[in-house]
C-alpha cells in the first residue's frame, strides 16, 4: 500500500510550563482534504508550525515522514523544498508590491540576479488562472480585498509546486461568497492532486469539504474521523472538541446579584471601513450589579472589538447603537472618558497593550489614576509607594520590590500588575479580556478568588474567555458571540460546553 503523504508520529512540543503538544499522531492521505479542528489552544497551530519547520527539528520530539521518508526541517525553507506550503491567518503578502511580485517573492525568476519580468508575469497569469482569480497581475496587493488576497497566497503556494497545502483559518476574515469560492477551489485543487490540510472553526465548512477530520484537544489527538464512512457530523465533532474535564478549580462565591443594571448595550454595531465589513452587529446585552457575565466564543468572533469599542478605543471604527452606564447614556471618544465614567478594561495582550514593560511595578499600577495621587499635578511619591505596596500585598504579586521592572516578572504576576492598575481606578464595571491566558494554575486560582471578592463587593465583571470550563466555572450568565453577533444568552445553570460550542460555531 502506498504510504500516506504525511505522517507525524508521537509529536511532543513543550513550552516553559506548558505541554502544547502531547504525543500527537497525525496522518494525511494523498489527495484528500483533511480538516484539523479543536478549541482555541488545542494545539492546531503549534502542530502546523512543527510541520512547516517554524519550530525546528530538535525543539520537539517525534517523527515527521513525507511519502514514508523521515524528514528533519530546520526552517521553513526545508519544508518548502519537499512541497509543503502553509498559508497563515495573517497573510504574508507585501501590500505595496504587485500581485506578480508577491507570487514570486523569494523565488524570483532570474538569470544572474536579473529578474525576467516578462516570464514572471506570464507565469503569474497562469497561476492566477489556476486559482480562478481574475485580476490584473500588475495590481497592488493593498488594492485587493481580503478574499482575493487569500487566492493570491494560494497562487503563490502553487507556483512553488506545493504538494501539501496547509490553510490556517482561511475563511475567518472572508464573507460568505468569498468563503464559498475558496472552498470550491480547494475541492478543485484536490481533484488535481494537491493535498490540503484545513484548519477551521467553522464546522459547516468542515462538514462540506472534509474527506477526513482530526480532532485535537489539549494538545492530544482525540480521534480521526472518515467522512466517507459517515463518521463526521456536527454533533460528533462538538462532542470530541469539548468534553474537557471541569476540575474543581473554581472557588465558590457567595454574592448577591441585584436587579440594578450597570451596563447596557442596545443595537451596538461596529463597522470597520478599513476592513470593509461589520465587526459587530446589533449587539444587545446587560450587566447587573455584582454579576459576572461571560462572553464566550471563538477567536475572531468580535469580543475584543466589543470591549474596545465600548471602552472608547476605536478611532478607526464607525459605531452606532447606545451604551448605557448606571442609567446614563454615554459616548466615549477616548478611554479617558470611559475610565472617568467607571469602566476599566484589562487587555488580552498584557505585554503589547497592558503594561509599560520597561517601567517598574509601582509606575504601572498607578498609571491609569495618577491624578488621585497628585496635588497640582505633582505626584506624592510616598502615597504612590503605599498604593503600590498595598496592591503588591493584596494581590500577592511576587516581586522582590515594587521598583522591579515588570518585564522581569512572570506572566501571572504581570497579569496581577495589570489587575492592580485597573482596580486602582475603582471601576464599577471591569472588563477582563482573557484574564488567565498564559498563566499558571496557582495564579489562575488567585485571579478567580479576586474576581469573586470583587463581585461580592458589588463590582460588575464582563469576562471574555475562550476557555469553556472557565466561562462555565466563573460566570453567572453567558453570552455566546459568533460572527459579530450575540448568538445566545444562557444562565450558567443551563449552559454546557456542548451548547456553547454549538452556538459559537454557528456563523
Amino acid at each position, binding site marked *: 500500500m502506498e504510504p500516506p503523504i504525511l505522517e507525524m508520529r508521537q509529536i511532543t512540543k513543550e513550552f516553559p510550563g506548558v505541554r502544547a503538544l502531547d504525543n500527537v499522531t497525525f496522518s494525511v492521505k494523498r489527495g484528500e482534504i483533511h480538516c484539523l479542528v479543536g478549541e482555541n489552544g488545542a494545539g492546531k497551530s503549534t502542530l502546523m508550525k512543527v510541520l512547516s519547520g517554524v519550530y525546528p527539528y530538535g525543539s520537539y520530539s517525534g517523527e515527521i515522514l513525507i511519502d514514508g521518508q523521515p524528514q528533519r526541517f530546520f526552517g521553513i525553507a526545508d519544508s518548502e523544498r519537499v512541497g509543503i506550503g502553509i498559508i497563515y491567518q495573517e497573510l504574508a503578502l507585501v501590500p505595496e508590491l504587485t500581485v506578480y511580485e508577491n507570487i514570486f517573492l523569494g523565488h524570483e525568476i532570474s538569470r544572474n540576479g536579473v529578474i525576467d519580468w516578462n516570464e514572471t508575469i506570464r507565469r503569474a497569469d497562469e497561476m492566477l488562472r489556476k486559482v480562478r482569480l481574475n485580476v490584473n497581475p500588475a495590481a497592488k496587493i493593498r488594492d485587493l480585498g481580503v478574499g482575493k488576497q487569500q487566492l493570491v497566497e494560494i497562487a503563490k503556494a502553487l507556483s512553488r509546486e506545493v504538494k501539501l497545502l496547509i490553510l490556517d483559518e482561511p475563511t475567518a476574515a472572508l464573507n460568505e461568497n468569498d468563503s464559498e469560492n475558496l472552498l470550491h477551489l480547494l475541492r478543485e485543487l484536490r481533484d488535481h492532486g494537491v493535498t490540503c490540510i484545513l484548519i477551521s472553526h467553522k464546522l459547516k465548512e468542515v462538514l462540506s469539504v472534509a474527506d477526513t477530520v482530526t480532532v485535537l484537544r489539549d494538545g492530544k489527538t482525540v480521534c480521526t474521523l472518515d467522512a466517507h464512512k459517515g463518521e463526521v457530523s456536527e454533533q460528533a465533532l462538538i462532542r470530541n472538541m469539548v468534553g474537557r474535564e471541569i476540575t474543581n478549580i473554581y472557588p465558590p462565591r457567595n454574592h448577591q446579584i441585584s436587579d440594578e443594571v450597570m451596563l447596557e448595550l442596545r443595537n451596538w454595531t461596529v463597522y470597520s471601513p478599513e476592513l470593509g465589513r461589520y465587526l459587530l452587529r446589533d449587539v444587545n446585552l446587560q450587566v447587573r450589579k455584582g454579576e459576572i457575565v461571560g462572553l464566550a466564543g471563538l477567536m475572531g468572533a468580535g469580543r475584543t472589538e466589543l470591549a474596545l469599542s465600548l*471602552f472608547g*478605543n476605536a478611532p478607526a471604527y464607525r459605531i452606532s447603537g447606545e451604551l448605557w452606564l448606571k442609567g446614563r447614556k454615554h459616548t466615549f471618544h*477616548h*478611554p*479617558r472618558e*470611559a*475610565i*472617568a465614567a467607571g469602566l476599566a*478594561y484589562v*487587555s488580552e495582550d498584557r505585554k*503589547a*497593550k*497592558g*503594561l*509599560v*514593560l*520597561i*517601567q517598574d511595578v509601582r*509606575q504601572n499600577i498607578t*498609571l*491609569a489614576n*495618577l*491624578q488621585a495621587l*497628585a496635588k497640582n*499635578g*505633582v*505626584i506624592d*511619591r*510616598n502615597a504612590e*509607594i*503605599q498604593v503600590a505596596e498595598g496592591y503588591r500585598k493584596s494581590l500577592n504579586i511576587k516581586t522582590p*520590590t515594587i521598583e522591579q*521592572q515588570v*518585564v*522581569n516578572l512572570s506572566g501571572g504576576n504581570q497579569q496581577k500588575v495589570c489587575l492592580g*492598575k485597573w482596580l486602582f481606578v475603582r471601576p464599577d464595571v471591569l472588563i477582563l479580556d482573557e484574564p488567565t491566558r498564559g498563566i499558571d494554575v496557582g495564579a489562575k486560582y488567585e485571579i478567580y478568588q479576586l474576581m469573586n471578592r470583587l463581585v461580592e463587593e458589588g463590582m460588575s465583571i464582563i469576562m471574555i474567555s475562550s476557555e469553556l470550563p472557565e466561562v462555565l466555572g466563573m460566570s453567572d450568565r453567558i453570552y455566546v458571540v459568533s460572527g459579530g453577533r450575540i448568538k445566545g444568552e444562557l444562565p450558567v445553570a443551563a449552559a454546557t460546553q456542548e451548547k456553547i460550542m454549538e452556538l459559537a460555531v454557528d456563523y
Partner: protein
Amino acid sequence: MTTQAAFVTNLQRALGQNIRQYGMFIALFVIMIIFSITTNGIFISSRNLSNLINQTGYIAVLAVGMTLVIVIRHIDLSVGFLAGFLGAVAAIALRFWDLPTIVVVPMVLVLGGLAGLLTAFPVAELKIPSFVASLAGWLIYRGALQLVTAGTGTIIIDDETFNAIGNGFIPDVAFSIVPGYHTLTLLLGVLAIVAFVISEIRSRNKKLAYNFEVLPTDMFVLKLVFISALIGLLAWIMAGYNGLSWTMVIVLVVVAIYHFITTQTVLGRHIYAVGGNPEAAELSGISVKRITYIVFASMGVLSALSGILFASRLRSATTTAGTLFELDAIAAAYIGGVSAAGGVGNVIGSIIGALVYVSLTSGMNLMGIDIAYQYIVRGLVLVAAVVFDVTTRRRGRAG
C-alpha cells in the same frame, strides 16, 4: 562583618545598581582630567570652564527638549534653523522695531511654542513620521532665516540688556569673603549645598516615617558629601572668573524645571508611559496626541531660547545661525543615555551629554587638534557612549 567591609559592600551595591547613571559622570571626569593634563592645566582653569559652560548653553537647552522628544519615540530636526530664525526675529525686533528685551524674549518664546505645535500637527493628527515633518521644518526655517536676513546680512544687536543674556554675569555683593573670588557666586553655592542637604534629609525622614527602604546611613552620608563637594567645586571654579553667568542661570533653571516635571509630575509620568508603550498608555486613559503636542511645543520654546542665547552671545543674528544645532543636540541626548526605542532617558543625563560633547570640542581646540580629527573623535565618543549604554542596560535587565 566589620564596619569597613559593610561599607565596601554597600558602596559596591549602590554603584552596581546605578552604573549607567554614574557612568556618564565618570566619563565627563575622565575627559576633563585628560584634557587638563594635555593642556597643562589650561582646560581646568576657571576662565576656560566658564567659557565652556557658556558655550554649552544653547546646545544644552536644545538637548533637554530633544530628550523628551526622543523619549516619546520622535525626533525634531527643525530645531537648529528654528533657533537661528527666531534669533534673527529677536534681532530684528530689537534693532528695527525698537522693542525692549523684556518684550522681545517672551514674544520669541511664544513664537517658538507655536512653531512646535505646527510641527506636532501632522505628527499627532495624520501620523506623519516626525523625521519627515521636522525635516520640512528644517527646510522652511532655513529659508525663512535667509529671507529675513536677505536685505541686511548679519544684523548687529546693540541692546546691552539682550547681549548680557549670553555674555553677562550676575552682579556681586559689596563685601568680599575670599579676595579675587566672586562673592555672590560663593554664597549661592553654599546656599545650594544647604538646600540640597536639607531636602535630602527631609525626604529620607519622610520615607523612614512610612517605613520605606532607604539608602544605608553610610551611603547616604557619602552621597551628600559627594554631591555637596561637586556643587561647591563648581561654585568655586565659577567664582574664580567673574562668577555665575546669566547663561548658566538660565540653563540651571531650565534643567531644574524639566527635572522636576519629568520626575515629580503626572505630566512627566505620562510622557514616559507614552514613550514606553503608547498603546498601553492610550488604554490607560492618556491621550497620546496631547502628549505629542506638549512635547513638541516645549521643544519649540526651548529652540527659541537656544536662538536667544546664541544671538545674544554673538551680539548679532547671522544668516547661518543654528546650522547643525539639531544634530549636536541629538548627539548630546544619545551620549546622555536616551533610547530611540522610547521611554528611556533623562534630562540630567542629556545635560552631562552636552557637557561631554562641548568639552571634547573645547579641549581639542586648546590642544590645537585639526577640526577634521575633532569630528572623528566626537563620532567615536558618540558610538562608545551608546554601546556602553546598551550593554549596561542589557546587563541591568538580566540581573
